[in-house]
């Protein structure tokens, strides 16, 4: 979802940037005399004659294009605020019924699984199901002095294996955002 929005933003900005560059560049070139006389008016008789000849359908085309641009831009704008889907995760479906997993309960189990790993101080998990393709989002606080391969090994070999087994899938991609903190200093209790 995050990656798709990033890609859509880059494509949208590139398209708008390309249109502006081409239009601005052509107008600049025409004004500098690249296409013949630069002293003719911007809206000369040819332009006015074209719209006079083709009216009203040419104006309907302008209106439809403007509406299409406005609706596309509105969809693009709303996509920025769209949250990742967090509904029930479908494990299995068939003629006899559907098996779904509650994302909240499973996310807690995943977070507990992560927290049991070496060098993990705390963990939070979310399960996202975008069009039947579940993925895992993790926020982990890890001990800053521990090597990262301990954490990545635990996530890869234990946590994600459990998630894949539970959801009966070969692949469940995961993104882990890790904060590093000093491990809490040990307390000595004297009785």
């Amino acid at each position, binding site marked *: 979802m995050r990656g798709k929005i990033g890609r*859509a933003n880059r494509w949208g900005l590139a398209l708008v940037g390309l249109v502006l560059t081409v239009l601005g560049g052509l107008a600049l070139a025409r*004004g500098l005399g690249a296409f013949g006389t630069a002293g003719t*008016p911007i809206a000369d008789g040819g332009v006015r004659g074209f719209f006079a000849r083709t009216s009203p359908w040419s104006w309907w085309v302008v209106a439809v294009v*403007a509406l299409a641009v*406005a609706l*596309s*831009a509105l969809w693009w*704008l709303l996509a920025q605020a769209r949250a990742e889907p967090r509904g029930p995760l479908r494990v299995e479906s068939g003629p006899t019924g559907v098996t779904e997993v509650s994302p909240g309960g499973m996310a807690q189990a995943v977070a507990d699984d992560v927290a049991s790993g070496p060098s993990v101080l705390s963990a939070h998990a979310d399960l996202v199901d975008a069009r039947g393709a579940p993925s895992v989002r993790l926020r982990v606080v890890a001990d800053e002095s521990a090597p*990262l391969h301990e954490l990545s090994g635990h996530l890869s070999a234990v946590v994600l294996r459990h998630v894949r087994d539970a959801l009966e899938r070969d692949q469940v991609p995961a993104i882990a955002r890790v904060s590093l903190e*000093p491990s809490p200093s040990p307390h000595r209790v004297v009785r």
Partner: protein
Amino acid sequence: MTTQEMCTVPPDDEGGAHRAEPPRRVGTGDSTARRTADRAAVRAFRPRRRIPAIVVSVLLTLLGLLVAAETISGLVGRPLRLVPYDGMLSWASATPWSDPLFLLSSAVVTLLGLALLAVALVPGRPSMVPARSGDPGLVIGLRTRTVTKALAHAAEEVPGVHAARARMRGHTVVVTAATSGWDKERFGEEVRDAVLTRLAALEPVEPYRVVVNVKESR
């Protein structure tokens, strides 16, 4: 007084200066999978360009709605006249293409377009420090602020260093360590080794240069 020591993690060649132990990871033998995982980690934390996207989409929505409203209202015989298009038409009919103001406006539009193209095509600095996971299905990012704190703590563990702070500028980590004021070279070396060791243990996907400044505090 300051001194600077530079090195990179991961090292440019296999005989690099850092002394971190090699990572022991699941499936380390598969270099293709590792490269795929590294690329996925870098891509996952690239800036999404939300601010420019929001600005451009808002402007395009307003412009599209305005043009559509003006055109359709004119076609049905009830022009809204939110835009003084009669005045605009007479200006365009009387102004030549070579008009300096028009040329300047065209140049601004071209530059704006080029700027948007650059924003779209330049990958940008990742919002987190992408780290090696060794698993193409697992992407790990380290929060930059906590990485610099961890590196500063590593520098502070060197005997004789009173305080240290670290900053990350692009792919350069600048560590400033305050010491007791003697044997500056040895401090520089030890702080550099400590920071490189900690940085190597974090297994960043991209190379980072470490610059150490040693300040003598009295």
